[in-house]
């Protein structure tokens, strides 16, 4: 146990600077509306060194820096899009969780709706082919008389 504690302390010292957690109290802006915008922007930006975490959730130091940059830009009066552009020009579109619908990305955005429309078309054609004539309601005379017979019994 003492060995565990000693190694534990050593590890603690080594990794301590790395364990900054997601948004820290000292980062939070005094203006609640501005802070809310900062949160929603940083929620959509990816931490450049993590596995699929947003800078809002990430513990990496670079994410903290980026969160601070976002807030600086907001305080400087930038709009949401300007802040995002500011960061994308420096870190590339890799940090965008929501790929911009332009160029090749149009395939990504239109694949779903496109397939849905195509599927609807195919399904419609199929169902029509399988369709029964709508007027064919009720029983034939022979069936009706047989039914009457059965009901009488």
């Amino acid at each position, binding site marked *: *146990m003492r060995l*565990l*504690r000693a*190694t*534990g*302390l*050593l*590890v*603690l010292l*080594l*990794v301590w600077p*790395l*364990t*900054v*957690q*997601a*948004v*820290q*109290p*000292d980062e*939070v802006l005094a203006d609640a509306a501005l802070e809310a915008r900062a949160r929603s922007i940083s*929620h*959509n930006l*990816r931490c450049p060194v993590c*596995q*699929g975490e*947003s800078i809002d*959730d990430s513990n990496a130091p670079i994410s903290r820096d980026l969160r601070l940059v976002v807030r600086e830009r907001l305080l400087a009066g930038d709009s949401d899009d300007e802040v995002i552009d500011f960061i994308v020009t420096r870190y*590339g*579109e*890799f*940090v*965008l*969780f*929501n*790929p911009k619908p332009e*160029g*090749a*990305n149009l395939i*990504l*955005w239109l*694949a*779903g709706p496109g*397939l*849905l429309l195509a*599927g*609807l078309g195919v*399904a419609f054609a*199929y*169902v*029509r082919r*399988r*369709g*029964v004539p*709508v007027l064919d309601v009720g029983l034939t005379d022979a069936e009706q008389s047989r039914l009457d017979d059965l009901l009488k019994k």
Partner: protein
Amino acid sequence: MIVELGHFALVLALGVALVQSTLPMWGAYRRNAALMALAEPAAMIQFVLVAFSFAALTYAFVTSDFSLRLVVMNSHTLKPMLYKVSGVWGNHEGSLLLWVLILALFGACAAWFGDNLPPTLKARVIAVQGLIGVAFLLFMLFTSNPFLRLEVPPLDGQDLNPLLQDPGLAFHPPFLYLGYVGLSMAFSFAVAALIEGRVDAAWGRWVRPWTLAAWIFLTIGIALGSWWAYYELGWGGFWFWDPVENASFMPWLLAAALLHSAIVVEKRESLKAWTILLAIMAFGFSLIGTFIVRSGVITSVPAFANDPERGVFILMILAVFMGGALTLFAFRAGSMEAKGVFSMVSRESALVVNNLLLSVSAFVVFIGTIWPLVAELAFDRKLSVGEPFFNAAFSPFVVGLALVLPVGAMIPWKRGEVRRSLRPLWPALVLAVSVGALVWAMQTGRSALGPVGVMLGIWVVLGAAIDLWSKTGRGTIGGRFGRMWRVPRADWGKVVAHTGLGVTIFAVSAMLAWKTEDIRVVQVGEAFPLGSYEVTLKAVDEVEGPNYLSTMATMEVRRAGALVATLTPEKRIYPVQAMPTTEAAIDYGFWRDIYLVIGDAQENGGWAVRSYIEPFANWLWAGTLIMALGGCLSLSDRRYRVAAGAARRTATGVPAE
């Protein structure tokens, strides 16, 4: 010694699987009863051998046999027993062995419970199952052997990733694999039926319970994973649209579609070719999921390029099975003539819409998951696809599905009228819309997500209740309640599963829309407000666990002065893997969870504290459980047992040849 026997059993299992996949298939082609009869013992022997091999690996983990490379990499003598056992499948090689074990188990189940199948179909199903076994046993023995020894065993192991040392995650992979691999049965049935060239109502009835079982396991597995993420990762999120999560979600969506289309095959002998295709694709997506998770190609392309052996092998398996099955499908699909006719407005059409929405939504998840890879390879663009994309692209499908569901569930087979089916549903619609509007009016300046979720949830849940009520016939209310218990289990299953979906949709939107968050520095002894609660940081202590060190805060939650809960969020360090984790403390409640996280000590004294109120969090887990329960009810329906019994009776009636 035991380890060597385990290794040897695995090699033997490969031999047996080779026999299982070839001779019965040949026997079915030549109508040779003796060769076909080989399928049954082969499937059982293969299962016993793989099970022995799995037991041997478990033994090595439990006794901390550090001459085994895998044990050294993933275990430690100080680790609690539960995690020594779960460490068996907490890594690539071991999880593959579990995969193969479950595959062999399903093969053996087909042998045990397959008495009512025609002999040729049964032989072919087991043979296809054996063929999948061959592929994965080869994969394991050549690229990921769990039984590799070390020449010089170290004194102790390197421990399991502490994030994985958790009861939720200990049982998450087995359930998920039962689901993934359960879909292999649907695949085997589909391929066997294509070879036979016959798909009829009976086939639909046989394939449905397997798909249902797989879907139930997938539901539970995904829910466990999501629950784990919720309490372990420390910010109260429950779904991240991470590639690994998506890998399990796509087969779930397709399995749900398959469940519904198999009903049409069973009851109306329509949609046959589509159902076969779905069965093939559902398992295909299980394989794709395995590829995504096991090769690491999506999370890190360079890592994949440096060690492509495993990924390429799985891709080959995927190509062979999907390519083979789809080629077979292309040749045979035309011969599967549909019998039942139905009009534009009918249960059949409603199920077609269900299938369309479910499978296109699975496709949306798929393209979002692989798009970063495609963009990098084809367009040389490094980009990410994450939560905002999926929320925007996937949610409309859920909304569409939920809107159509109650109506579709009540439209009669063959031909119906929307207006007549809507008539009993009017109260549900009115109530759903008005409550949704009320919620919309009460919350100012927030997103429409909450109200829409409330509306859809009420609509789906009430719709399910009305569906059940409509099955009790006419008469006095008391009489109808009495008859409710005589409604077949399959119908109960449908109603319960749909209710679960409604609850889940509501809970997801409530959690996303109405979460309360608070981040601040708190001094020991200080209190701060959280919604209508007051939280006090009482103390922060250093505590020692079995294999970790912990910084544990003691916090009191009060409401109007009365103590609600005393919570102890922790921050742990696992020295062996040098990894810090946060352990959130949660007060689970019916209406809300209070979720507290302790952060770092601040320079000016005090601690960073993160606190959340998660509304209706438990409703989410309850909703998924209700869905799974609905599946179980449906699975226990008499129909499947009656069919089995009837077949046995005729079997004994035929004189021996």
